[in-house]
């Protein structure tokens, strides 16, 4: 499967048509017969809503969330329809990036996995929150799922989830071979911050990961970090653990057979020692 990370950097996306052209333009560079997964970044819903003129001109993050939720209350499902059409017309699996959803009075970040037929194949909510997200009154999801996406078993992580190694361990235990991360980091020198997140999750779980980082402004905040495709160090040039990186588009075809060979030679998860974790398995875990 070819995986492609997009961050919206520099793209003119003032309509659904332009979004389609943008994705189609990127995918045109790759062989059409390939199975493909496109991953959009964190805050994709807010950013696209802003680009499409749905949010007016939000002057702050809070205003952007408020305007988005108000618009979606009036036109529920509009963005999902756009994503469905995008996946169908491009014949790809699509991770939508994150968008805010209200459910029973709670506010979540959610991402959807769309099949090449345009159906919603799965949904994932963000499970750990940043300080800023807590200040916005957001809530946490309570599950992590692994979905069948073509030939891959796929897990989704949203934004802050990447910094919490528990998330990767759960997805690895559930059999994920590929994790898609929809990220949004305020612009700055994020190189080492990124290594402390998805890169380390990949190294201690030996799955692949595609990290899509938003490169655009939302609600007056500029976001910017490299998109990356990660693999266990042993199967990458120079042992960097990175198959591809840059602002966008970033693409690679992870080699599942090579990953299995790495795991056979160094079976990290078999060398865990759960007996020593006892009642302190993890903070908040059973018996704590």
């Amino acid at each position, binding site marked *: 499967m070819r995986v492609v990370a997009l961050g919206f950097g520099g793209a003119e996306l003032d309509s659904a048509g332009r979004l389609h052209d943008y994705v189609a333009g990127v995918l045109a560079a790759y062989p059409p017969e390939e199975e493909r997964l496109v991953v959009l970044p964190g805050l994709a819903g807010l950013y696209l809503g802003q680009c499409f003129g749905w949010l007016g001109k939000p002057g702050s993050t809070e205003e952007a969330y408020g305007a988005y939720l108000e618009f979606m209350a009036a036109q529920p499902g509009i963005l999902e329809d756009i994503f469905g059409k995008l996946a169908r017309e491009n014949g790809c699996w699509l991770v939508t990036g994150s968008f805010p959803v209200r459910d029973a009075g709670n506010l979540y970040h959610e991402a959807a996995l769309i099949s090449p037929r345009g159906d919603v194949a799965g949904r994932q909510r963000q499970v750990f929150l940043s300080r800023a997200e807590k200040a916005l009154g957001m809530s946490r999801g309570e599950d992590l799922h692994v979905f069948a996406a073509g030939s891959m078993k796929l897990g989704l992580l949203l934004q802050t989830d990447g910094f919490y190694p*528990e998330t990767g361990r759960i997805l*690895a235990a559930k059999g994920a071979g590929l994790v898609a991360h929809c990220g949004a980091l305020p612009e700055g020198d994020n190189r*080492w911050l990124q290594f402390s997140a998805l890169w380390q999750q990949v190294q201690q779980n030996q799955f692949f990961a595609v990290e899509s980082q938003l490169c655009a402004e939302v609600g007056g905040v500029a976001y910017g970090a490299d998109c990356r495709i990660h693999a266990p160090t042993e199967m990458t040039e120079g042992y960097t653990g990175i198959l591809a990186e840059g602002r966008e588009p970033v693409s690679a075809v992870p080699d599942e057979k090579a990953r299995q060979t790495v795991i056979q030679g160094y079976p990290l*998860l078999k060398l865990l020692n759960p007996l020593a974790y006892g009642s302190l398995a*993890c903070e908040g*875990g059973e018996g*704590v």
Partner: protein
Amino acid sequence: MTLKETLFIRYLAHKTRPAVLQRHLQTLCKGCATTPDYNRRQLTAAAAQVHLDLVPDARDYVGTMHSFAARAAEAGASLLVYPENNSFPLLGLLPGIGEMAKNLDGEGDGPAVSVADLFRALGPVFNRVAHTTFSHLARHYGLWIVAGSYPTPVQGRVFNRALIYAPSGALAGTQDKVHLTLQEHQWAFTPGADFRVYTTPFGRLAAPVCMDATYFETFRILAGLGAEIVAVPIANPEAYNPWLALRGIWPRVQESLVYGVKSALVGELFGHTLTGKAGIFAPLPLTPNGDGVLAETQHPDREGFACAALDLEALRELREQHPYLGDKNPALMKKYFPGIYSTMGG
């Protein structure tokens, strides 16, 4: 144990008797003993990078260990960490160790000797050398010392055990390596059963061993137990590559918000090349270059020394204010932990 083996162990014990080593230590440790003075805002931690040279005389070993303690004291350090398998240089006390190495686990022509058997016999002698040495150095220099780890026999089983000495000279704590490598499993070592954190006058200290730092669980549990400084002795049997090396203590320090002190054993033994860089690591916002590294030795294959000042109060403040870390999701954790491990064959 045969009579010949018993006599040999007694001979080794005599050659390494505490009186001989203490006399040598007294010669080395000149001047007044140091009185510790701890400042949580500026606490110097040091890490030794020890080159594995087999010693024909235990006094040579004492001399090497002393040189690091003297250097740490000169730098004003309160904590000094030595590497994993820090008794390996003492294998040089065995006549014909080179030949014996070929027969470890049946690889040579002679009778097979398992590594566990080797340390079952020699561990008590080597650990007594360690106790004599580090107890004295800790007392004289007023240091907290993580003496590195020692294959340690306990009721027939062999643990890879880290030893912690207080400035009183007392053995203040131990930590058995919990996550064994494939090689240590082959060597028939026994994994540790728990993680421990020790209280010092400057903060809470832990000392998991090498492979333990590969897994986030180690540091999560230790941080949950209050650890602020996590010392990790390593002896890594692979060619050095900075990306491979980055998979251990560095990410653990970032995700669990602790200081990390890594000490490395480097050199050649039994056909294995050990590499690594000793270093002091901190969460990204507490490092001047924003890269999570406060100090690191330059070369991964020769003797070295790293030291840096830690600010334990800044660490406490960071934990309270970190923009991304510190969130809790008890519902998620209760749902998945520890049950997920049952699917992993650990």
